[in-house]
């Protein structure tokens, strides 16, 4: 298979403009004759469905939650980057582009990243116009803060609820289109398969989560904005319902899966408190602007933090990285937290935590300023831990947060299946091996508002679509597949709950394919997963029927897919004999313990092709070229 990224050449500043000019257009009057399915209603899916509806296409939008407003984009706290340079502090589109390529550890496509940085400024304008209540200065102008991995203030925010406010903006735009009958919304409906006819994506098979009805929806193009697969680790900052089913089933129908091993660990989460833990809660990275990270200098120092004098504290990020200090990128911050805990200097009952201390910031700025910046985060921390972070330093530990990998897409955001587009976290495209803070919201909205609505028309205008009906053999075959899985899960009648299996898989993945990986550990995981998968299919217990709201059944289908995907993640991690960004292989590190890339052998996108369950997937490589930002070893010292 030849992977054509369709990324334009020439001067990088004009690539997107020239590319757009060369795309075919759909005449406004003809747009209503084209139908598009959008799966997912987060920042990417919601903004895409709204914008496509606005353009006049017939759009159907699907989400598994009870309302499109619930998608997990809503939980993003810190902010959204844009190269506005409102602060006159040296920012520019080029600098955002540079920071993102470097932050991604030189594993992303330059053309895509430059486009993202260009569009970032339009996103802020769009969201302000929609009424997103971004933080303001007293003068009425927009306020900014700085964020991990950057030395300029380019992050726009709405208190600690930026994701919520941006999503509500997109949701309101979407509801407006629903009210105008340009978009039909299907809440509590889960996509369970992709319908491919003559090699092109032509629809999806869904299950109505209330009635259990399996149904097919046909269209001329399908857009997946279904988010990432971090929940494979069971404990993550993802929502409980976040899942990889839409991605995985599209992958099984032929869409290549790119860089699955690039998973991001967020350095500032509330540590695990017990075995019943169902998810991890993130504390926005913006806290590192004013909080200082430290652990006791001595091993096993169990004194309360207030009793540990300044001279006996190790502000290890400030010590090791004087120029970025507490604002080093996420992967660096996470690995360092793990390292100090491995040395036995971790704090709290489990020893798996470090302090994030606001004492100095409160002294410098006053409690009211800190409350204004982070009030809701401090409240949330106190609610969960019963400790007051204004008095006692927060305890934090890294947790799985985001997945940079996803379905492979070209510059138009089209996957390797013609007519199947993938946007937002669900694709692999813009963050390379590591995503910078406040860039996920930017990418989701860039794809949904500004990229996809431009590129999808080119496909629709250049293809001929013959009429197909739900009686088409490909449709019936997909429906049979879906019913078969449901039936099998219900009829297994085993002894163990779905959650018990999911926890077990998550622990295996965290232990052997988490923050740091070794060839030996990955081989061990790869030997365990098929056995665990077989056991799942033999022993899972799903009660109730398929013709009702059955939350165990929903979970079971998602976990079944996680078993298959986890094998691919480990395979990819084992195949990539280097460390880069979120993928850290212990065998490949510099003498100072930093990630050691191997550009000579691994400067490519690993795109995997499905060859049947249990069979090794086939690797296709898309080579990466760097004409503008030349790969160097990242240094945040």
């Amino acid at each position: 298979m030849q992977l054509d990224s369709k990324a334009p050449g020439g001067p990088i500043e004009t690539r997107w403009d020239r590319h757009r000019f060369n795309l075919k257009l759909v005449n406004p009057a003809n747009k209503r004759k084209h139908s598009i399915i959008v799966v997912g209603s987060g920042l990417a899916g919601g903004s895409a469905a709204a914008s496509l509806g606005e353009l006049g296409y017939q759009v159907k939008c699907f989400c598994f939650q009870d309302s499109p407003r619930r998608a997990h984009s809503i939980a993003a706290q810190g902010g959204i980057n844009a190269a506005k340079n409102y602060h006159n502090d040296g920012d520019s589109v080029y600098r955002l582009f540079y920071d993102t390529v470097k932050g991604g550890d030189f594993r992303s496509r330059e053309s895509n990243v430059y486009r993202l940085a260009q569009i970032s400024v339009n996103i802020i304008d769009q969201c302000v116009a929609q009424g997103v209540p971004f933080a303001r200065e007293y003068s009425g102008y927009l306020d900014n803060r700085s964020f991990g991995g950057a030395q300029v203030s380019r992050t726009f925010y709405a208190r600690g609820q930026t994701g919520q406010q941006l999503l509500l903006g997109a949701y309101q735009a979407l509801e407006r289109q629903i009210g105008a009958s340009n978009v039909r919304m299907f809440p509590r409906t889960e996509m369970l398969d992709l319908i491919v006819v003559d090699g092109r994506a032509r629809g999806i098979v869904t299950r109505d989560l209330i009635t259990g009805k399996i149904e097919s929806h046909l269209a001329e193009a399908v857009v997946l904005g279904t988010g990432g697969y971090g929940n494979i680790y069971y404990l993550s900052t993802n929502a409980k319902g976040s899942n990889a089913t839409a991605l995985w089933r599209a992958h099984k129908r032929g869409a290549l899966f790119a860089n699955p091993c690039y998973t991001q660990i967020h350095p500032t989460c509330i540590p695990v408190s017990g075995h019943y833990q169902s998810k991890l809660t993130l504390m926005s990275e913006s806290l590192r602007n004013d909080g200082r990270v430290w652990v006791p200098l001595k091993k096993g120092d169990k004194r309360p933090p207030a009793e540990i004098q300044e001279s006996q504290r190790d502000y290890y990020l400030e010590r090791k990285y004087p120029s970025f200090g507490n604002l080093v990128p996420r992967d660096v911050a996470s690995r360092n937290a793990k390292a100090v805990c491995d040395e036995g200097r971790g704090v709290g009952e489990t020893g798996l935590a470090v302090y994030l201390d606001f004492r100095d910031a409160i002294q410098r700025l006053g409690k009211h300023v800190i409350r204004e910046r982070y009030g809701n985060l401090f409240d949330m921390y106190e609610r969960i831990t019963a400790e007051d972070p204004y008095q006692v330093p927060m305890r934090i530990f890294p947790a799985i947060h985001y997945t940079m990998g996803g379905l492979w897409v070209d510059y138009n955001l089209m996957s390797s299946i013609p007519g199947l587009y993938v946007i937002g976290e669900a694709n692999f495209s813009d963050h390379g091996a590591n995503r910078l803070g406040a860039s996920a919201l930017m990418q989701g909205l860039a794809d949904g508002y500004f990229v996809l609505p431009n590129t999808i028309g080119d496909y629709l205008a250049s293809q001929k679509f013959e009429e197909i009906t739900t009686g088409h053999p490909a449709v019936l075959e997909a429906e049979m597949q879906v019913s078969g899985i449901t039936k099998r899960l219900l009829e297994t009648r085993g002894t163990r709950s779905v959650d018990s299996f999911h926890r077990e898989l998550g622990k295996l993945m965290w232990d052997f394919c988490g923050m740091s990986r070794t060839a030996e550990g990955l081989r061990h995981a790869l030997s365990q997963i098929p056995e665990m998968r077989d056991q799942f299919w033999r022993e899972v217990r799903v009660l109730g029927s398929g013709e009702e709201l059955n939350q165990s059944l929903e979970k079971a289908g998602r976990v079944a897919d996680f078993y298959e995907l986890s094998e691919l993640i480990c395979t990819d991690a084992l195949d990539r004999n280097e460390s880069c960004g979120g993928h850290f292989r212990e065998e490949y590190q510099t003498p100072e313990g930093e990630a050691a890339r191997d550009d000579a052998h691994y400067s490519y996108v690993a795109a995997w092709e499905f060859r049947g369950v249990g069979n090794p997937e086939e690797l296709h490589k898309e080579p990466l070229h760097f004409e503008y930002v030349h790969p160097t070893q990242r240094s945040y010292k």
Partner: protein
Amino acid sequence: MRLILHIWRQPNAQEKGRMVRYEVPNVNEDMSFLEMLDVLNENLIENGQEPVAFDHDCREGICGMCGFMINGVAHGPVRGTTICQLHMRHFRDGQELYLEPWRARAFPIVKDLVVNRSAFDRLIAAGGFISVATGSAPDGNAILVPKENSDRAMDAAACIGCGACVAMCPNASASLFMGAKIAHLGLLPQGQPERERRVVAMVAQARQEMFGSCTNIGECEAVCPKEIKLEVIGRMNRDFLRASWSRREALRDDEAEVSGKPLAGSRR
């Protein structure tokens, strides 16, 4: 600690429901309320009984998916907290708790503690937005917003659409929910052009959805997990009155479109 739960079990919208008693013997005080229900459900599955259905997703108090009544109070006893962020340290050993779904005509029960809140989406679709086509926005700093206004807009915009306000209101009114959106958009310069149309359309839609009227009881504010203030309802009423005065003619058209019935505020 040990808890005794009485939980509303109802297989679907058609069949009748009833309270069923369960014991959860091994509750840890650092668990969230939903983690406690996870433990109950694991026990039920082990014993071959169907687990209790309840809505939840982010478990960080922001998606608005979770919520039910604990001893008659929406989201339970702690102020400004969703059920997913409510921890068991607020309960005592041996306590009996009654868990029921939101009860409102506009929120039909789906199963057990799960209800259908699509009526909220239709309220937003009726007018809870600013009409701006993608790509047509001016520079962000071209629209200045006084910090006080933007802060107050953010206070109102914090609504998570969970439905606790409706569930707690004796009239099952959606006024706090609507007021929050109307205040959020109405406090910003961008929201002015559609301000009157918005309030009229949303109020008309609320009537269609069979939400009740507001009689200033304030239960909604007391249980709102985001502590949205009652003043947003005052703002909505003021906007509505203003709209009905200045847009009487336009209103008649809107009414005819939406319900065919005259609106309370426009009866003059």
